[in-house]
């Protein structure tokens, strides 16, 4: 019988096969490290007197705590500073490559790996961070691990794992202008639920996925975890290869040819069987936005806040009630009538160059809505520089928004970039949990295009809501929802 993409990658990394309910031992090709989930792992190594087995397959960056303003000054917050300093010390002690604040390769760990060409098809990638699923966009098996597992990978370059089940998520058709990868994944999560992918590796397939760029594919795989899945994957193709070729750590010359030969085998066989299958029609998708406090609580922007009473399941109903209370929303309110206090454009979901370009294309020549705070945070120092070379920083500043340095920033508010209690934010990040962006903060997850239109109008909006002459190509072919 044929095998799925996920099964092929898995099989090619088997060090030992488990027997009788014991896990398989999988070899890990790339281990990404950041300051939050690693200190206790390095401590564990120190206590046991163990070295890092493969420093040459390990790379660290500072992202979660780093300030996005005045990065040349010492970090004011003491605990943030301690974590960063601890990582720096550990990197020296254990011989790990580290990209610190101020370094051109510094940035969100999931932006840095792909941009360096370290994330390649058919590899196993782990990081003490659930959004490691991002790297699956390259046809890699990539998943988040806990700190004990970080220590385990540092010490052994392997992980004991039980095989995952496989789920095909097929998205066919063409996206309408103004609808993006973010809307696809938000719609997928709303459809299968935040627990729907539990125990599965998702493989995203279909013509709508094939036509996405690598940045869009990363957005999709990034949020697989929000559907409860361990990982999301997309088979590599010419778009993948074009993205990778010439990147600093991608294979070169004869090695590139050898790699390509292998990568071309990384497709799900026609006769392979998935444990579950889901279909979605891209033609029908509209800009999507969340109303609640988990990423599955979303609707099309043209719809209204749902009535909790409409949920047949008692737990769903109770969750919806609690969400509406926290979000201070009344059932039946049209989503487009909801005003925001802030717009956050960033995070490992949507902070790559194409995301910034999409955002800039909408706000260019516009002014932000009165009283709305708009923050644009590139995913990495390199993305920031690339954007500046294209003049995006100026477009952002002219719009009245803040142009920041790279990092996780308001995605989780570990640095000073936080919402105040009660503040409402349209955010391109991936989690709308209670207090995620700051205690008492209220988050609506959106695409970069929706973030931009919302920043212009001050209420949740998409480019379809903007007058034709103000948005050029996007709205001309778009339509009112």
């Amino acid at each position, binding site marked *: 019988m044929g095998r799925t993409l996920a099964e092929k990658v898995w099989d090619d990394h088997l*060090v030992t096969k488990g027997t009788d309910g014991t896990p398989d031992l999988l070899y890990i090709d790339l281990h990404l490290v950041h300051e939050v989930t690693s200190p*206790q792992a390095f401590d564990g190594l120190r206590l046991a007197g163990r070295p890092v087995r493969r420093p*040459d397959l390990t790379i660290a960056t500072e992202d979660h705590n780093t300030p996005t303003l005045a990065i040349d000054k010492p970090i004011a917050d003491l605990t943030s500073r301690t974590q960063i300093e601890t990582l720096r010390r550990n990197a020296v002690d254990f011989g790990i*490559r580290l990209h610190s604040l101020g370094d051109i390769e510094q940035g969100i760990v999931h932006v840095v790996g792909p941009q360096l060409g370290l994330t390649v098809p058919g590899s196993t990638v782990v990081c003490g961070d659930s959004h490691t699923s991002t790297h699956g966009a390259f046809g890699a098996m990539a998943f988040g691990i806990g700190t*004990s597992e970080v220590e385990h990978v540092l010490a052994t370059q392997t992980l004991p794992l039980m095989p995952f089940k496989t789920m095909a998520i097929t998205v066919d058709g063409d996206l309408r202008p103004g609808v993006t990868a973010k809307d696809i994944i938000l719609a997928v999560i709303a459809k299968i639920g935040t627990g729907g992918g539990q125990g599965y590796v998702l493989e995203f397939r279909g013509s709508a996925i094939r036509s996405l760029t690598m940045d869009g594919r990363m957005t999709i795989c990034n949020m697989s975890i929000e559907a409860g899945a361990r990982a999301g994957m997309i088979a590599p193709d010419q778009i993948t290869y074009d993205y990778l070729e010439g990147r600093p750590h991608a294979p070169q010359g004869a090695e590139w040819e050898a790699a390509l030969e292998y990568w071309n085998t990384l497709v799900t066989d026609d006769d392979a069987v998935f444990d579950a299958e889901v279909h979605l029609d891209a033609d029908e998708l509209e800009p999507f936005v969340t109303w609640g406090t988990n990423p599955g609580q979303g609707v099309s922007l043209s719809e209204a806040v749902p009535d909790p009473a409409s949920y047949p399941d008692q737990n769903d109903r109770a969750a919806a009630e609690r969400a509406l209370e926290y979000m201070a929303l009344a059932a039946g309110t049209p989503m487009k009538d909801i005003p925001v206090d802030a717009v956050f454009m960033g995070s490992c979901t949507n902070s790559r160059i194409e995301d910034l370009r999409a955002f800039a294309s909408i706000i260019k020549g516009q002014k932000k809505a009165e009283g709305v705070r708009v923050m644009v945070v590139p995913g990495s120092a390199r993305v920031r520089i690339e954007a500046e070379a294209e003049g995006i920083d100026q477009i952002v500043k002219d719009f009245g928004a803040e142009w920041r340095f790279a990092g996780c920033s308001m995605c989780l508010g570990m640095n000073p970039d936080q919402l105040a209690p009660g503040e409402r934010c349209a955010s391109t990040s991936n989690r709308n949990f209670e207090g995620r962006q700051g*205690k008492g903060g209220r988050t609506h997850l959106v695409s970069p295009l929706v973030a931009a239109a919302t920043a212009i109008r001050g209420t949740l909006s998409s480019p379809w809501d903007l007058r034709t002459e103000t948005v050029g190509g996007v709205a001309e072919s778009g339509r009112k929802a």
Partner: protein
Amino acid sequence: MNKVSVIRGVAAPLERSNVDTDQIIPAVFLKRVTKTGFEDALFYAWRQDPEFVLNRAEFQNARVLIAGPDFGTGSSREHAVWALRDYGFDAVLSPRFGDIFRGNSGKQGLLSGEISEPDAAKLWAIIADRPGIEATVDLVERTVSVGDYSTTFKIDDYTRWRLLEGLDDISLTLRDEERITEFESHRASWRPRTLPVR
């Protein structure tokens, strides 16, 4: 790691579903670099409310948490497990767990057992009648009993064995170190390395 077999202690009900790891321990506490001392961070936001279950006198010294479905979803932070352990919990029972959380708990000696939704409701009802009642969680038999009611929970064989033996993962894996070295000897040379820096 200590061996786990039978846990007996006060059972605390957490009658909520979808308790994600941000609720178990907010991100602000992740800044610490130690592995212990997280007891005050557990359910930090909810504990500001004097009526919250863990603030009630009957549930002081609780060792067994009985939660609604989808406990421990969301972020991979292992701090969620440390906070539960530091607070004094030795077992969490829920109809469904976040995958990463469940993996993490097995590695830290926290027993995560899956019970049915009716059983969760039943246990909550018993505790509501007799707040402060003790539960007995038997890992050998995979049973939980509260008062006269006894039922089973699910935990995979491997995690159960590891908890019973108190085995640490790394030493277990390093028993196969030769196999790892052998695997490395035939890894394709095109696979990227982070060093030297290019």
